[in-house]
């Protein structure tokens, strides 16, 4: 894959950098890594991180340090759809363990694994700030809350239908 932002995304990069004082462009690293992950296949490989370093005029190691610290950056390939199910206290009290087990059975994968067709990845995560709407998961940009087995089924169906449409 060619690792280079489009003109439109490059403008976004420059706008992000402009939010910080002159010479403090490194501050834009988190938002730019989010953008890079979104643009270049859902994860950050070394080439992508090096590219981000060049955009910010910093050393590649400064990007690796950051990318490995924050849990939202994927450092290996992931499926097209990622289920990130919360397993912390309040979600556990409301049955998140059952939901995680159900997704594992339904997709035939373990935690941290991706289905063979490359469609789904299952991750377990710690508190996402949705404790009153438990059990829940992060699904792309938003949350899916008050999960039940039926809701999980319909989310999976929704993904399969969407993937079929895009092919």
């Amino acid at each position: 894959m060619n690792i280079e932002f489009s003109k439109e995304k490059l403008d976004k990069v420059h706008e992000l950098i402009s939010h910080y004082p002159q010479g403090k462009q490194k501050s834009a690293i988190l938002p730019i890594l989010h953008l890079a992950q979104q643009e270049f296949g859902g994860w950050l490989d070394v080439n992508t991180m090096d590219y981000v370093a060049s955009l910010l005029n910093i050393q590649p190691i400064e990007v690796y340090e950051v990318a490995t610290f924050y849990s939202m950056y994927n450092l290996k390939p992931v499926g097209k759809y990622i289920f990130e199910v919360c397993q912390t206290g309040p979600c556990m009290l409301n049955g998140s363990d059952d939901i995680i087990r159900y997704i594992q059975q339904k997709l035939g994968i373990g935690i941290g694994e991706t289905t063979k067709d490359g469609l789904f990845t299952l991750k377990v995560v710690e508190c996402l700030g949705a404790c009153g709407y438990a059990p829940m998961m992060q699904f792309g940009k938003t949350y899916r809350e008050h999960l039940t087995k039926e809701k999980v089924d319909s989310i999976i169906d929704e993904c399969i239908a969407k993937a079929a449409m895009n092919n």
Partner: protein
Amino acid sequence: MSKKLLLDKAHIEGIHTYDVYRREGGYKSVEKALKMKPNDIVEEVKKSGLRGRGGAGFPTGMKWSFLAKPEGVARYLVCNADESEPGTFKDRYLMEVIPHLLIEGMIVSAYALGSKVSYIYIRGEYDWITDILEKAIDEAKQNGFLGQNILGSGFDCEIYLHRGAGAYICGEETALLESLEGKRGLPRIKPPFPAVRGVWGCPTVVNNVETITAIVPIINDGGDVYSKIGSGKSTGTKLISSCGNINKPGVYEIDMTISVEEFIYSDEYCGGIPNGKRLKACIPGGASVPILPANLLLKTAKGETRMMNYESLSDGGFATGSMMGSGGFIVLDEDQCVVRHTLTLTRFYHHESCGQCSPCREGTGWMEKIFSKIENGKGEMKDIDLLWDIQRKIEGNTICPLGDAAAWPVAAAIRHFRDEFEWHILNPQECLKRNYGLAHYADPLEKSVTA
């Protein structure tokens, strides 16, 4: 019914838009503040008695007055919207439902502190809320409340969003500043405090979302009026996000004059516990504060009714009390297992430790392992004392309070629920099939409990 200062207009349709918000009296505090001297605003905030709503409860006016003001050096206001304390989802609610309230509070606070460029550091997972806030900022800008020379006052004010990427530790203010500088979120040694050397070495104030929104009613009505709401040193209103085993989980604004019992059982708030079950335990202020059994939650060790405010929740110290913390209110019913619940919290802190200090980096992992052992029927009696020993060695021995936050839930679980731990160890088969249950945790306390 509690007085509402932040959420009184939250139910109004379209309140997330500038037009409706403005029509309902929004941004009046900016117009008023720009006619005041910045220091007079700080004085009003001091008078209000407002305490930081992120968890530590430090007086906001005092924090503001510590801000260094060297000539020719920029000062910064940073809003901490990295809400990640388990049980806490109040800031999310505020930003989602009434985003302009935060922008309004930011402008007034920025003016008071002399911050021409301010940032909202929002947790990465709140991706869609970033869009909501971005829209609110654009609208405020179009209407002259942000940008150069706002409302002709001569004050320039910009607000930028900075999205995190998944790290609880960045809610700690110095880790947040490191992250804002584009680094790993490793807390700094204090002093120097951010008020002297904050982001990019410049004087900085970091305030929680709810704290900043509370500035709006303080300026509109005056600090004196605000200070008369609530009780004692718990002035104003507090948002409580309640969750766990209750009928009506959600975000409630209280004026800190109601009892814990009323908060749990009244239909106005949590609406009681589902399926007629009994209350076993509760963590009243976010995962980091001590868990209390039902009897000590509803009444203090002195036998007084426990109230939903800073003083009453901490009455008895850690021996028999807890803390208001962030207002993340987690309720456990009679069928819940305190060992299992605390296991999830130890896993959380292990996962979120930044790894900088060895007591926390190693200790949190050890605690998770031992909890897992006990929960899975492989515990030994000496494990309980080992857990106690580990948490003691973490507490107070780390750069930032994450170590304490990891130690306290473990200490409190052992302090109040030791027999539940022992039952797991003595019944290794049975504990895999059923929970310990309510036991004596809701029984009336016969006599004063002392440490």
